[in-house]
Each structure stands twice: as structure tokens, then as C-alpha cells.
């Protein structure tokens, strides 16, 4: 503001005018063209500065309403100082008020002699001239329209040009009614400052922005968030810059009606996040241009409180869900148990049941039914059982109950196990009872008894059977022993029989022979013929005895086998030689055929010879006419040797082909007897073949002939 100065007031000597008419005319034109009070005053001051020697100037105007002399405009003076200047016109002794009404310019010097009292002007320490505005006519009537305070004119007198300009400006200001305008402006100014004070007094940040988001008005709260001078620290300025970015980003032009949105900003002083609720309302700031008033309400604490409430609610919901899940799980567990479970409260009322228990203790059907009666009976039995538990002190109780199946009425024996549920505080909360169906157990026990009994019986039977078997075994063993003995006895018996038969046979054959040999003298032809028949029969008897003995030996396992390497062709030769006399007595053609290569075989020569001899003898015996053939073959390297004896004889009927190998069987016994056979030959052959690991095969057709084939292993080595 203005500085304190001690000034001398002196009348100003008038100087002559030097400014040309053209310059004056330009001022007149400019003032006439301007219709605002302040610009008019400024124009005049600038004209003075240009055309006279003044350096600084202040234009003061009289406000009739307030009765004060106030600053209108200035040149080389701060506008604030101009606005601040105000002087009460009632102070008639004030040098400026005096000079206002004097009608003449007054000089205020810095001499310090004639100063009645100190006062301040925006012009500071300098000496200045005070020049009243308006015509002297004006000034005669009342107070003039105002004063020009001029400095820099030096000690020289105020020129006619200055006075002319002051009069012209005073006239123009009077014409423009500057007094009213000034008063309006002052009122507006007051209202504006009041409004600003109100806005600033609101703690919530308030902003007015233009269409482009530029801030036109901001109250203190808004300035704190969105503006920062150079004096603020770095962090603060950065927070403010961030807030501006955030605010601009969220800014938009609402065409109509208020909008509400949330905005997160940073508190520049503390760096904490602040949540604002922004209420934006469009307002008209100029004709055709809209701005936006935004009121920011700090809802950070509100939000926090809301979040806390939400969190608490969420926790509550979670706890609830957990409880429900726990309960569901318990239900699931209870329901999955196949045995009835009941929970009773301390008063004895059933409070929970699983489905199996429900089947026993509830009746879904109509009332007063048989089912209900059974359920009630079950209930009574159960209640009585549980009351036992309450009567005693024990935590558990166990018993057997007979319940009824509600549907069938059948008695169900159950084992009931009850347990008291006691809370942490020792308070009895419930009794849990599990019922275990004993029906199956009882049936199982019954079944087990039956099985056990049957098992015992079975064991007894097995024992008896075993004993019987042992007895049988013993019997068999004894029988086997007896059979063995019998067999041995039979063999011995046959051996003895053979011996006892041979001895008389020896006599018969011997004496017959003596007589036939003529040892006992000559005999007649008829006698000789009859003795020959005795001899033949004795021989037949001998062969029967020999065959019997052979069979006996084979059957008793006493037939020895003596293995040697033999050549079959040689053996066949021997056989042929032996039967040569027989062949000579027939008209049969006897042939033999041998393969080119026949290996030697290891076997019992005597037995092979006996078999072949027998087969060949049979063929000769039973073939009235035709031929007999012996054929040897070798079947493969590891195969068999075969000796086949074929004839064109009587043949053997198919039904007899199996029995022919049995003892004393002959296809035609009468013929056989006639031929001197014993009926044991084939039996012996087959058994001998077996002894040599061989076999005898037969192919025959009745009336067409037979083929007996002896097969022997190529490398026979009988055990």
C-alpha cells in the first residue's frame, strides 16, 4: 500500500499550453469513443504521460453514495493499490479533500514545513500535484467529480494542457455518469468478494471449470488439492500434478442436470488416497458458453466404513456358510449310516433322526393305522430305554430292545447304544443312540450252528468212511496177498501138474517107441499103425502141457527174456527149415520176401522164433489150398520191423477176431483139433510179443484168408 509521507501543499503556478490542437483532438476523439469510466480515465492518463512530463498518475473519483474518494485507475501504480485507496470526504480538513473542492491545482512537496498532518497515497514518497477534474463551473456547485494526482511534472507549473485534459476528463466522466457505475461496480465487487468468501468458507473443494476443463474458480479446499506454488515441496507438487491429471481425466461436459461420480485423489500434504464423490452441475458462464461447477465431497471415511461393514457382513456370511456346511456334512454322515441313529434332547424328545431311524419311529401313512400303533410302541420302548440313561450317572448305556417293524409288525431285536453329549461347560445337551439290528447276527449265529452241526456230521462221516476205507484197504491188501499166494500156488500147482503129467507121458511115449523100434520084438502092421496113433496123441498132449506151462510162466512174470543181436533173415531160414517136413506134406506154395536193407535187431531170439514158428504153423494148418507168404518190412529209421504171415486159408469172422487171442479160442475148434492145435498158440504169441515191446495185428476175411503181422521195435531192448 502507500507509504507514509510528509508533504508540503503549495499552489501550482499555471504554465502556458504547448500541446497542439491535433493531439488534443485525438484525446477528445478517444474519450468520446470510449463509454466505460475506467478505460476513459486510463486513456486520459496515458495521453498525459505521452504529451506532458508526468511519470506516474492516479485518478481518484468521488463516490457520492459512500461519501468517499476512491481510486479509479492508475498509471505506474499497482492496480491493487488503486483499488485499496479510499478517503472519507467528511474529513474536510484532509489536504486532498481541500484540493478537491478548491478548483485549483495544488502541489504537494516533500519540504516538510507546511504539512498539517501526514497522509498516504499510492504514489509513495514522491512529490505530486493534485489537479481537480471537471470545469470550474462544476466545482462551484459541489464537490468535483474527482482528482488527478500527478508526479514527475517536476517543479514546473501545471500547464494549461494538463488543466485542459483534467477538465475534459471530468466532463466526460460526468457525462458517462461515472458515479453510479462506480457504485455498481463497488457493490458487485463486494458481492463477489462475499461470494468468494462463502465459497472459500465451504470446506468441501468447489471448482468452476470451463468447457475445456480449465479452472476458472477454485476455493481453498480445491486449491489445496489442485494448485501449488513454487514454495511447495517436490512431493506436494507431484501430488498436485497427479490430481490435476486425475481430475482432467474424469472431467466431462454435462449438457444438462447434475451428475455424480467418484474420484480418487491424493492428499498432497500427507500422500494418502482420498475418495471424493464429485457432484457436477453445468452452469452458463457466458452467453453460449457452459462451465461446470464441481463439488467434491470427501467420502474416504465413509467408504472405509462401508468397506468395513461389507467385510463384516461377508465374514458373517462365510461363518454362516461354514456352519451350514458343517451341519450338511453331519447330516450326510448321519444319513449315510445304515443303522438307525436318534438324537434326543435332555427332555427326552427326539430332535434328530437319520432315514433308517425314521423308518422305525415315524409313520407317513394315515393315523390310527397299524403302522402308527407299532411306531408308538417303538417310541415307548425307546423312551423307556433312554430314561435309563438319565436315571443313572454313566455316560453310556447299552441294552437290547425288541422293536417292531412298522410295515410288517415283525419283531426286530436290536442292540441299543446310547451316549450322553455333554458340552464344554458340563451341560448335558443331547443323547445320541445307535440301534444295531441283531436279526442278521442271530440268523448268522443260527446258521453257524447249523453249519457247525453239519460239519460235525460230515466229519463223523468222513471219519467213518476213512475207517471203512482203511478196513477195505486192509482187506484188499490181504486179498492181494492171498491172490499173490494163490497165483504162486497156481504156478506151483501147474508146474507140479506138468511134472506129474510128463512122467506118465514119458512112459507112454517111451514104451510106444520101444515097441515101434522093435525092442520088444516084431509087431504087425496093424499094431504099428495103432502105436503110431498113440504116439501122435501123446505128442499132442505134450504140446498142450508145454503151452500151458508157457502161459503160466508169462502170467507169473517168470518168463526170462534174453536179449541179443539177431539177423532176421537167418532166423526165418531156421523157421523154414523146421517146417520143411510140414510144407512137404501140403500142396501149398510158400514164399518169402525181404527188403533190400534190413537192420539187425536186439531182441530175444528164441521168443521171436517161437512166435513166427507158431504163426507159420497156423497158416499151414488152416490153409487147405493156395499159398502162404512171409514178408518182412522195415518201417522208417526209428520205426518198426514187421513180419507178416499171410495165407489164403479159411479166414476168421470179424466177430471172432478179438477173441481169437484169448486162451482156448479157435475159429473152428473141430478143425483145429483135427490139425493138432492146442488153442493156446495165439495167446502165447501175443503175450510173448508184449514181452518184447511188440504186438501182433490181424487182418482177415472169412473164407479168403488171414494175415498175422508181428511188429517189433527196430532197436528193441526189452526191460
Amino acid at each position, binding site marked *: 500500500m502507500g507509504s507514509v509521507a510528509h508533504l508540503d501543499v503549495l499552489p501550482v503556478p499555471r504554465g502556458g499550453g504547448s500541446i497542439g490542437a491535433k493531439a488534443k483532438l485525438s484525446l477528445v476523439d478517444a474519450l468520446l469513443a470510449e463509454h466505460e469510466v475506467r478505460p476513459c480515465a486510463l486513456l486520459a492518463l496515458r495521453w498525459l504521460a505521452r504529451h506532458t512530463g508526468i511519470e506516474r498518475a492516479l485518478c481518484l473519483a468521488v463516490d457520492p453514495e459512500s461519501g468517499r474518494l476512491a481510486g479509479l485507475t492508475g498509471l505506474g501504480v499497482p492496480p491493487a493499490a488503486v483499488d485499496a485507496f479510499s478517503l472519507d470526504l467528511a474529513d474536510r480538513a484532509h489536504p486532498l479533500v481541500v484540493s478537491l473542492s478548491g478548483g485549483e491545482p495544488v502541489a504537494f512537496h516533500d519540504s516538510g514545513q507546511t504539512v498539517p498532518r501526514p497522509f498516504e497515497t499510492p504514489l509513495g514518497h514522491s512529490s505530486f500535484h493534485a489537479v481537480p477534474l471537471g470545469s470550474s463551473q462544476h466545482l462551484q456547485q459541489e464537490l468535483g467529480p474527482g482528482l488527478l494526482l500527478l508526479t514527475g511534472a517536476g517543479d514546473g507549473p501545471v500547464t494549461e494542457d494538463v488543466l485542459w485534459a483534467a477538465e475534459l476528463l471530468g466532463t466526460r466522466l460526468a457525462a458517462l455518469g461515472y458515479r453510479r457505475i462506480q457504485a455498481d461496480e463497488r457493490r458487485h465487487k463486494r458481492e463477489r468478494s462475499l461470494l468468494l468468501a462463502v465459497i472459500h468458507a465451504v470446506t468441501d473443494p468447489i471448482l468452476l471449470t470451463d468447457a475445456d476443463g480449465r479452472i476458472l474458480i477454485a476455493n481453498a479446499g480445491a486449491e489445496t488439492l489442485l494448485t501449488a506454488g513454487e514454495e511447495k515441496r517436490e512431493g506436494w507438487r507431484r501430488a498436485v500434478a497427479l490430481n490435476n491429471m486425475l481430475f482432467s481425466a474424469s472431467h466431462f461436459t454435462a449438457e444438462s442436470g447434475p451428475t455424480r461420480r467418484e474420484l480418487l485423489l491424493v492428499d498432497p500434504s500427507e500422500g494418502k488416497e482420498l475418495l471424493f464423490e464429485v457432484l457436477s452441475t453445468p452452469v452458463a458462464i457466458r452467453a453460449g458458453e457452459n462451465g461446470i461447477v464441481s463439488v467434491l465431497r470427501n467420502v474416504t471415511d465413509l467408504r472405509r466404513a462401508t468397506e468395513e461393514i461389507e467385510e463384516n457382513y461377508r465374514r458373517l456370511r462365510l461363518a454362516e456358510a461354514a456352519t451350514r456346511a458343517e451341519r450338511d456334512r453331519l447330516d450326510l454322515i448321519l444319513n449315510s449310516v445304515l443303522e438307525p441313529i436318534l438324537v434326543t434332547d435332555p427332555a427326552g424328545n427326539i430332535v434328530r433322526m437319520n432315514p433308517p431311524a425314521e423308518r422305525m419311529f415315524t409313520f407317513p401313512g394315515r393315523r390310527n393305522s397299524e403302522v402308527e400303533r407299532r411306531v408308538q410302541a417303538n417310541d415307548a420302548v425307546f423312551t423307556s430305554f433312554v430314561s435309563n440313561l438319565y436315571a443313572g450317572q454313566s455316560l453310556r448305556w447299552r441294552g437290547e430292545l425288541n422293536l417292531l417293524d412298522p410295515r410288517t409288525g415283525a419283531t426286530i431285536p436290536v442292540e441299543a447304544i446310547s451316549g450322553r453329549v455333554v458340552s464344554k461347560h458340563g451341560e448335558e445337551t443331547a443323547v445320541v443312540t445307535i440301534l444295531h439290528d441283531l436279526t442278521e447276527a442271530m440268523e448268522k449265529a443260527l446258521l453257524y450252528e447249523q453249519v457247525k452241526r453239519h460239519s460235525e456230521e460230515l466229519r463223523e462221516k468222513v471219519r467213518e468212511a476213512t475207517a471203512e476205507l482203511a478196513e477195505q484197504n486192509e482187506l484188499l491188501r490181504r486179498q492181494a496177498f492171498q491172490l499173490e499166494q494163490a497165483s504162486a500156488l497156481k504156478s506151483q500147482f501147474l*508146474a507140479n501138474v*506138468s*511134472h*506129474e503129467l*510128463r*512122467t506118465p*507121458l*514119458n*512112459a*507112454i*511115449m*517111451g*514104451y510106444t*517107441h*520101444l515097441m515101434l*523100434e522093435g*525092442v520088444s520084438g516084431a509087431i504087425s502092421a496093424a499094431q504099428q499103425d495103432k502105436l503110431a496113433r498113440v504116439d501122435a496123441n*501123446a505128442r499132442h498132449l*505134450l504140446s498142450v*502141457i*508145454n503151452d500151458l*506151462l508157457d502161459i503160466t*510162466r508169462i502170467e507169473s512174470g*517168470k518168463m*526170462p527174456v534174453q536179449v541179443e543181436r539177431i539177423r532176421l533173415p537167418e532166423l526165418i531160414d531156421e523157421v523154414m527149415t523146421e517146417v520143411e517136413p510140414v510144407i512137404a506134406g501140403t500142396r501149398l506154395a510158400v514164399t518169402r520176401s525181404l527188403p533190400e536193407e534190413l537192420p539187425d535187431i536186439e531182441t530175444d531170439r528164441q521168443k521171436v522164433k517161437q512166435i513166427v514158428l507158431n504163426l507159420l504153423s497156423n497158416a499151414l494148418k488152416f490153409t487147405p489150398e493156395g499159398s502162404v507168404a512171409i514178408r518182412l518190412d522195415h518201417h522208417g529209421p526209428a520205426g518198426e520191423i514187421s513180419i507178416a504171415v499171410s495165407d489164403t486159408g479159411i479166414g476168421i469172422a470179424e466177430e471172432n477176431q478179438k477173441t481169437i487171442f484169448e486162451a482156448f479160442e479157435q475159429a473152428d475148434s473141430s478143425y483145429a483139433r483135427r490139425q493138432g492145435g492146442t488153442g493156446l498158440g495165439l495167446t502165447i504169441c501175443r503175450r510173448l510179443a508184449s514181452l518184447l515191446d511188440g504186438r501182433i495185428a490181424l487182418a482177415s476175411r472169412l473164407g479168403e484168408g488171414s494175415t498175422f503181422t508181428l511188429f517189433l521195435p527196430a532197436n528193441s531192448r526189452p526191460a
Partner: protein
Amino acid sequence: MTSDKKPPPLVLVVDDVDHGREIFAEYLEFRGFRVATAADGLEAIEKAHELLPDIILMDLSLPGIDGWEATRRLKQDPSTSAIPIIALTAHALASAHDRARDVGCNAVVTKPCLPKDLEQEVRRQLAAARPAEGPAQP
């Protein structure tokens, strides 16, 4: 040669059965042999020591000392061990024949046996035994 002057071979026929002795004795005498007989094992041993026959026909099943035992004793006695013994038996089983050979019989002939077959066997045994007779051979 003085074979014609030498007395024919002496055959000792041992058999407990009368006709068994008679048939072979009669036929062998008919065929020119000298024949002595014994009816049991003990008699056979005594006759053998007494007569020292050229060959013995020994039945095996004899009362008292049987043919096997008699043969064993005769074959163990140096004075009689060289005499060929032909077992003449109605036993047809191999075991009986084996036992006979085991005790020292030179051959086994099964009854019934034709007298001429027996004569052949006697001559075969005498022929086989002759080189061993040494000084007895003329």
C-alpha cells in the same frame, strides 16, 4: 584100434519110478550099452563109487537125497567128478534146469523124451568126455 575089444560104455540110470528106469535101461541095453540102475540119490552115489560108470542119467526128483544133491556130491568127489551126468527130468521150468547145471550136470533132458533122442545125447556126452578120460581111453 582095439575099440571092439573094449567093453561097451556103462550107463547108470537113476530114477525112483520103475518104468522110468526100465524104458531107458531096456532101450540102451538094446542099443549095446551096459546099464546099471539106482532108485534114489543115496543108491546112485554108492553105485557110482562102486561101478564108476562112463555116464550117469540122473532123475532130479528123488526121495531122500534128490538128483541135484546127488550130482553135487558126485561132482565134488574127485573119484567121480569126471563122470558126465545128464539130468533127466519131468521138470519143464528153466529154474529147475538152471539148478541142475549149477550143481554140475553136463546136460539137461526133459521128459518125456524119446529113447532114441536120449541115446543121441548120451553118445554126444561120451564123445565130449572122452579126451578128458585120458588113461581110460584105449
